């Protein structure tokens, strides 16, 4: 008997799966993203819990290290723009900072050091070791002491609640975790998506810190001036400055939206019965001259 050579069509779906590709994909994506978010959130909480145990003196040493590096770089632009400690504007800002720090109940082992940067940027920031930086662009746009006190108290609150060291700890631990997972994913694109998710999760913490600082600053304003007028003018200045640049949705942003911050201020003032309007304290009359006249006080680098 000889073999019969005949070919019949095999049934489909044995070597492939009938499952819809989108179903598999969405399950996988949701699962992995959920895992990332949970992991980042728990690692961030851990970092936030542990970071305050870093003594403030250690933080200051870290800051000195960074500052040293900055000054060692030849002709570092930022370093050249920072006004000296004895510049009139710096002295004024420092005295305001000391007053606000006292009112805010800054712990004794912490100190605030204010720096003035001669640059267009409309911003101010607080960083490791209690260093607070003010840009000329912001100070030029501020109309009164109340608004300035709001920024200052906000930045001091960041220091008081140890936000810079918490952020650093969080960035180190979540950065490591994301690097490990995304390299395991084996593809650059997937790694980017996972990294992005981690970043967006971290931004949530950043926005919470901003809100905490806003609230603390408002508290101090009410304590010192008896009202919270000026706080909203600050945000109006910020809004004006960022008007020409498109603001991304809050979800993608490190700070809450300015509108939300103003709403939050009004809500807080209402809750604590702080008057929203009151007597405005003007800035010192020479203030604008101080801003312009820092040329002689620049750090001179050979």
């Amino acid at each position, binding site marked *: 008997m*000889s*073999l019969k*050579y*005949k*070919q*019949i*069509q095999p049934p*489909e779906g044995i*070597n*492939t*799966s009938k*499952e819809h*590709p*989108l179903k*598999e*994909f969405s399950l*996988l*994506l949701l*699962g*992995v993203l959920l895992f990332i978010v949970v992991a980042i959130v728990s690692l961030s909480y851990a970092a936030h819990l542990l970071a305050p145990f870093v003594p403030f003196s250690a933080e200051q040493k870290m800051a000195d290290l960074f500052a040293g590096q900055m000054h060692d770089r030849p002709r570092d632009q930022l370093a050249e723009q920072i006004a000296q400690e004895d510049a009139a504007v710096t002295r004024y800002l420092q005295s305001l900072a000391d007053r606000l720090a006292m009112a805010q109940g800054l712990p004794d082992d912490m100190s605030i050091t204010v720096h003035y940067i001669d640059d267009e940027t409309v911003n101010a920031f607080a960083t490791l070791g209690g260093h607070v930086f003010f840009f000329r662009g912001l100070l030029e746009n501020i109309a009164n002491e109340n608004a300035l006190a709001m920024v200052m108290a906000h930045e001091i609150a960041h220091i008081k609640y140890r936000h810079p060291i918490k952020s650093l700890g969080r960035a180190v631990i979540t950065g490591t975790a994301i690097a490990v*997972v995304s390299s*395991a*994913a*084996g*593809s*650059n*694109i*997937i790694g*980017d*998506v996972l990294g*992005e998710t981690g970043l967006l999760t971290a931004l949530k913490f950043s926005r919470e810190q901003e809100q905490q600082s806003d609230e603390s600053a408002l508290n101090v304003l009410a304590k010192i001036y008896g009202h919270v007028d000026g706080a909203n003018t600050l945000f109006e200045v910020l809004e004006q400055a960022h008007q020409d640049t498109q603001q*991304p*949705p809050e979800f*993608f942003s490190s700070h809450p939206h300015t509108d939300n911050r103003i709403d939050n201020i009004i809500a807080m003032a209402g809750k604590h019965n702080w008057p929203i309007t009151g007597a405005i304290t003007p800035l010192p009359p020479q203030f604008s001259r101080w801003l312009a006249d820092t040329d002689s006080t620049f750090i001179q680098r050979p």
Partner: protein
Amino acid sequence: MYDLIIFLILMSLGYGFGRVAEKRHYKSILERETALNRIPAIVLRLPPPSLKPQNTELVMGSVVISIDYFKRIAAGLRSLVGGRMMSYESLLDRARREAVLRMKEQADALGANMVFNIKMETASISKGRKNKIGSVEVLAYGTAIIPVAVPIQQL
């Protein structure tokens, strides 16, 4: 955020085109397979001795097939948790069947009535550029048995 938008656009492009291409390809595979079933592809090494002397010819079919953006991402995610790489399975299934079909089409053009000793080889052509190129070659080859028009004189 713009990265995310670009990513989503690439994903939907990859998914849309990939899905349409796959559907069309499977349809064409099924049609041609049914038509070419008259040329059986047999993995036996030698034709049975009972077969009368025939002409033989090497026939081969080769396919290079590339992964789409969507499948690549799906596979990347799958590689995190493990399991069946379903997005690759259909891709390779198509490549194998297309390669056999091309081989059979060649055999058909030669007037063969069957192909013996079928072998398949797969080569990844993304060597060293894992994240840039996701292409695979599938080669099917065998010996086409071509009946001789004039019967050979029996000794």
